[in-house]
Each structure stands twice: as structure tokens, then as C-alpha cells.
């Protein structure tokens, strides 16, 4: 087991290297550069800027310079935001994205499993149908619709909540409500559907029938036997879902003006801010790879049938 963990962990490094290389090449291939402006700068100013950021060096040299920086934990200066390094922006904004994503995913998981079980236990009744209709809405309605609709209802019409902002602002924690609801909606929907179908699978399995025959109460059967078996597909969904919710929060961050990493992800590519986009990609892919790794480990604890060599 330990050997497997170490092996998997070391396997992350080449993956990350491939991602960095690809991202580096693709960024440079994109038309336009960081210093293209409305009114063209003179060739000399452009040359000065390029010298300042080492863009006048050959591509392989730039790549090696960048890689050796990364190894030392130096993400380099941002091309666009000249007052701080890329690392500063990542470390100030990532925690906000992580907080938002974690709460949203916890809510989605909790509510999704809950609704999924209820729907499964009441299969083909109105409860099941309404739960699954809600799930279909969650999957099909995009975030940029859900967000503004919530804002219209709760901030503009009812005036219960501030339109936007973040916990660091004057409105405090209450600002979490709408972005968390918006962001968790599609994940809630997916988890509800997943858990409904896996509960239905498990409920018909032999070991649940045995438990029933032993005379155990329904509560014990659900909590101890059904839930454990039904959790497996959800756990494997949660890994990618976590990285998805962190990277996919761009829209929500924009609508509710949350100072997260998502804005930098989009803006830095539009700005051709080479170092910033690389930094964000490295952080995001590390999260994705780590999550998949964790899920694999957790899996082995949940499912005794899986063994690692």
C-alpha cells in the first residue's frame, strides 16, 4: 500500500511536466502578445519591455529559465500586474476559491446524497419525480443564469441579501449564501442522480436482503449497509468535481465579485500574461492530480474488493 502511494505520488511529476510544457508552447503560439496595446508602443519601448521580461531570449532558454524558477518555487513577475509577483496573486486569491469551492461541494454532496436516497426509497412516486426534475434543472441551467436570477430575487426584490461581495467586505459571511447556492446547484444535481441510482442498485443486492432478513431496522440498514456501498460512485465523482468546482467558479466569482483565482485564470489568458496563466495552470492541475490521487486512496478503504500492488 505504502509502495503504491509513493509510486502514484512520484507519477504526478511527469504529468505536471507535460502540462507545463504544453501550456508554455500553446501560450506562445496564441496570436498577439502581452505588450499589444491600443496605441502601439514604439519598437524601442517594446524591445525594452521584452528585455525586462526576457522575451528577447530564445524559446528553449525562456522555458529552462521558467522551469528552474518553478523548481525554486518562483512563479516569476506578472506581465500585467507589475506591482507584485504571480505567487502573491495566487496565494492571496486561491484561499477564497478554495473556501467557496469546499463549502459549495460539501453542501452539494450532503444535499445531493440526501435527496438521492429519498428519491430512491420513494422510487416512481411524486417525490422521486420532483427530486429528479430538480436535478435535471440543475444540470441544464447554466450558472450565469442561476446567479443573476438568485441576485434578482434575494437582493433586488426581497432585499434580504447584498447583491455581491465577499466575506472580507462589510457584509461578512452572509455574502457566501448566493455564490455557494449557485455554484453547488449543478453538483448537487449530479450527486442526487448518482446516489439515487446507486442506492437503487445496492438496495437490491444480496447483502442488503440478508440484513433485512436478520430483522435489522430500516434506519440501520440504510446508514450502515446501503450508504456505504452507495458512496463508492460518489467518492469517485468527488475528486474531479472538487477540481472542477475550483476551476469552474470563474462565472460565479465574476457575478458575485469574489476575489478568487478564477478571474485571473480567464483574464490572464486574455491579457497574454504568460507567467500568470502558467502559474494558475500549475495550481489548477496540481489540485486536479492531487484530488484524483486522494480518491484512489480513499477508494481502497471503502471498497475491500480493491487491492493495490
Amino acid at each position: 500500500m505504502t509502495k503504491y502511494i509513493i509510486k502514484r505520488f512520484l507519477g504526478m511529476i511527469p504529468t505536471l511536466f507535460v502540462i507545463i510544457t504544453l501550456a508554455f508552447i500553446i501560450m506562445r503560439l496564441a496570436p498577439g502578445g502581452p505588450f499589444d496595446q491600443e496605441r502601439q508602443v514604439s519598437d524601442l519601448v517594446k524591445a525594452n519591455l521584452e528585455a525586462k521580461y526576457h522575451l528577447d531570449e530564445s524559446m528553449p532558454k525562456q522555458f529552462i529559465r521558467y522551469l528552474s524558477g518553478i523548481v525554486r518555487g518562483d512563479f516569476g513577475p506578472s506581465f500585467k500586474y507589475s506591482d507584485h509577483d504571480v505567487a502573491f496573486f495566487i496565494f492571496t486569491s486561491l484561499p477564497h476559491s478554495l473556501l467557496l469551492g469546499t463549502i459549495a461541494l460539501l453542501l452539494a454532496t450532503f444535499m445531493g446524497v440526501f435527496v438521492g436516497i429519498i428519491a430512491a426509497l420513494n422510487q416512481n412516486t411524486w417525490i422521486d419525480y420532483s427530486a429528479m426534475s430538480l436535478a435535471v434543472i440543475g444540470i441544464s441551467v447554466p450558472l450565469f443564469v442561476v446567479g443573476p436570477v438568485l441576485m434578482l430575487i434575494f437582493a433586488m426584490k426581497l432585499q434580504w441579501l447584498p447583491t455581491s461581495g465577499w466575506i472580507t467586505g462589510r457584509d461578512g459571511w452572509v455574502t457566501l449564501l448566493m455564490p455557494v447556492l449557485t455554484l453547488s446547484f449543478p453538483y448537487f444535481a449530479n450527486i442526487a442522480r448518482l446516489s439515487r441510482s446507486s442506492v437503487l442498485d445496492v438496495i437490491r443486492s444480496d447483502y442488503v436482503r440478508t440484513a433485512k432478513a436478520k430483522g435489522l431496522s430500516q434506519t440501520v440498514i440504510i446508514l450502515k449497509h446501503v450508504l456505504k456501498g452507495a458512496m463508492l460512485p460518489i467518492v469517485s465523482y468527488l475528486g474531479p468535481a472538487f477540481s472542477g468546482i475550483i476551476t469552474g467558479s470563474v462565472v460565479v466569482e465574476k457575478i458575485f465579485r469574489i476575489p478568487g483565482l478564477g478571474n485571473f485564470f480567464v483574464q490572464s489568458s486574455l491579457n497574454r500574461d504568460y507567467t500568470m496563466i502558467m502559474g494558475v495552470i500549475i495550481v489548477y492541475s496540481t489540485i486536479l492530480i492531487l484530488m484524483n490521487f486522494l480518491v484512489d486512496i480513499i477508494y481502497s478503504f471503502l471498497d475491500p474488493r480493491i487491492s493495490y500492488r
Partner: protein
Amino acid sequence: MKKALSFLLILALASTAVFANGQQGDGAMAKEPVEFSLINGAEPESLDPHLIQGVPEHRIYESLFEGLVGYSWEDASPVPGVAESWEASNEGTTYTFKIRKDVMWSDGVAITAHTVVDSWLRMLDPATAGPYVWFPAMFIKGANDFNSGEAGPEAVQIRAIDDMTFQMDLVGPLPYVIGALAHYSFGIVPMHAIEKYGNEWTSPENFVGNGPFVLEEWVPQDKITAVPNPNYWEAEVVQLDRVIYLPVEDLNTAHNMFLNGEVDWDTNVPLDQIENVKVRDDYWATPYLGTYYYVFQNEVAPFDNPNVRKALAMGFNRQNLVDKITKAGQLPAFSMVPNMAGYPAIQDDNEDIAEAKKLLAEAGYPGGEGFPKFEILYNTSESHKKIAEYIQHEWKKNLGIDVELNNQEWKTYLSNRNQGNFQVARAGWIGDYQDPNTFLDMFVTGGGMNGGKYSNANYDAAITEAATMEAGPARMKKLVEAETYFIKEDQSVMPIYYYVALNMIDMEKWGGFNHNVLDTHPTKDIYLK
């Protein structure tokens, strides 16, 4: 079963209770100090006056710094700042400034004529690589030589005659220079702090400024706050206790915040909300010194024929466009330079479908027949798209010409437009100062906005000559002559409309705020009525 459900229900309730608790926390907050919050668009690229180039950065600059002159809140004309007075000599090519005795940095260090010299040399230093360096370099004698690396800093004709007297030589008698000095690229910066902290000098804990306000907090993408600077020379006129800049790029969110009373000044309005807010008395659409236009690729057929360019410029209805598409009261534009004091727009409505058809026929395309397919290039945006679609439709209907639309994201578009990889491209220009020159000098052969490759020796000569002339009607006449070549004779570009500045602010509540053509509103003068 029931137990399981109630267990889950309790958990659900518990989790909502956590949220509800958070809601109560900040309820009773003392609302004593006067705070003024505003929507500031994109996250500022920098606070360093020499490294900035956008409108959001400009707004912050006005609070945190002050140049030799500042902007008047009423009409954006230049008012004394660090310099209390100035005089021109040498036929308007030399300016001598008297520095105020009591000006100092927020940390108490004195500001002298030497500070100005050191600051401007930093701006012009090629190593600083400032994006707007071309602007001061356009004015100061020797600045281009230093900035281009052909000469050392001693070539720059600026000097401190004594601690309180600063002098500069210009490349010519540029009568608009004083107005231009209020621009951030002429900013005075705390060299002592920059030497100490490097590029971290703009962090709140290191920050040193000389404006009416001083940086208090900067949370990227969340807010920038500034509080009054006790060391400001005119600290007694500053009335706001805090200015809060909110970087909000989503126009709808910003608009909702304003409607809900969460922000005091919204600096834009979403296109689809303009109809709704027109009836409100806190909505302001006022003339803005800027022109929205299309550039023709002057070197490539069929656009190398001025008659083709004229036909296209005449062949659609601008009034309809501003009434039905842009909707905010923009004015149809037929010339590049908007109406300015001493410089009336050189051309009135010249839309004429019949004449356009005639010109097109003369160019060899009767009824649009045989006109090669071409594209309108624009950067991705809802309003640019609507405008392009309207013009596409009009040209088809009026002239029988087929045109396709090509939208590209900003940097790709800029790269193609600046290199001239287009046939017709959308562009816009906002004046840097209140003089026709700001709209004209960039179209000289090889100029900075001249992706259309316009080149007319007469035009270049007129612009160059105007730059050597003193203020007055003769100079304006020369500029009219230049624009006549540019627009009336050559129609190198096709002006579409003059911008309006859109602002939402309750003027019953806030004073010291006036609408002006530069859309500049120094926080120094804003007060609660």
C-alpha cells in the same frame, strides 16, 4: 426510516443555522465617517504612475498622487498642483514652474524641483519600460533620445534651477502642454520609497504618495481603500473620510449594486439597461472626448481608392445607429475630432446614398457589382457586434455590398489591427487632453494608431507645422487643414459616433462632482451634501 430522516433533517437545519449566525454578525456598525464607494472596472494593473495606462488606474492615481498640475473637478481644465504657478518663455517652448513650499510626501519627506527631475527621468528611462512613455516623450525636448537609448539622461531638457524652481524645454510651442501635465505619465513619484522597496513600494504598508488621499488597503480583485493624507498641502479641503474603489467588471452586477444602494458611483451602464434608467435622475449621459470609428486598410484594393472609402462612409445612417443601437445619446460623427473650443467639427452630415452609389460606380463597382468580399474586424463585445451588424445590413441595402463580420478577442484583434491585417476594422480613441492634436497626430505616416497605413505628405506636413505654432486661430486653422486632408479628401477612416460618458450618481447627495468631457472626477473635491 423516520429516525434516519429526522437525523438528516437536523443536520440540514444545523448547517443553515451556521449561515444564519454569520448573517447577524455585522449588524450594528457605526456609520459615522463619510465613505464614498465607486465601481472602478478592471483590477488595476499597478498603482505606480509610470507603469499604468487605463481608466481604472487613472481614477486611483487622482486620489493618491498629484503632478505639477491637477484636473479641475468642474471642466477638467488644469489647476495648480505641486506647482503653484508657471510661466512660458522662449516663444512658448520653455516653461518654468514654481514649486509649492509646503508640498511633501505622505511620510513627511519634502518634494522639491529635484524630485520632479528624478521622477521624470525615471519615467523616461528605457529600463522603466513604461507603457505610456510615448506621451511625455512627445513633449519634452531630448526625451525621445533618452528613451530610445540614443543618449543618456543628460539629453533630457528638464532641470531644477533651485529647490523650488523647475524648468523644462519643449520640442515646440505646444499650447496644450499644461493640460497634458495632469496626466499620470507626468506623475511625480517617491524615489526614496522606490529605492527602498523596489516594485513592492505600492503595497499599503510601504506606500508613499503625495495626493489628497493615501493608500489604506489593497485586496486584489476585492477593493482598494484610501483615507485622507494629513500631509497633503490642501488637506483642509478634503472632505471624504474614505474612498473605496471596487474592481467590478460585470456591468450587470455593478448596476444592481448601484440600484440597491451598495455603491455611490457607478461608472458605466449595461447596454440593455439604458432604456430603463433614462427616466432616473441619477443617470447621466454626457459628451465624452472620444470618437468611435472604422479604419480602412488604405494600401489594399479596393480600399486604396478614396472614392470607395467615401462611398462606404456616406452609405449608412448614423442617426439611426445611435438612436436604435447605442441608445445612450451618442452623437453621429462625420469628422475625427469632436467639437472643441476654437475647433468646430470640420464636417456636417454628409450621408448621401445617391452620391455614394455614384462614387462606387465611378470606382468600377456599379450597384456594388464585383465588389470583392471583405470583413469588418472588431474586438469581441456585444455592442461592437450590434454596430457591425447594423452597418453590414445598411451597406447591403444601400450599396449592394456584401461584408462579413470577424470578431476576435482583444489581444488578437490589437495585434492584427496594429499590423494592418484587416480590410475594415473597428477602433475608438479617447482624447488624452483637450486639443485636436490628440486625435490627429497618431495618424501621421508610421504613427502609433495608424494600422490603416494612411500616408499623405500634406497631412504629415500640416501636423508637423502645427506642432511648431503658438496657440491661436492660425494653429487651429492648420489643424483643420490637416483634418481636411485626412477626412474630407482621403476619408482614411470613417467616423461613426462621438462617445458619451455614462455615469450613475445621486447629485442631490454628492457635491463637487461635475460632468466634463474628460469624464474625470477628482475625489479631492467630492463631498456629502
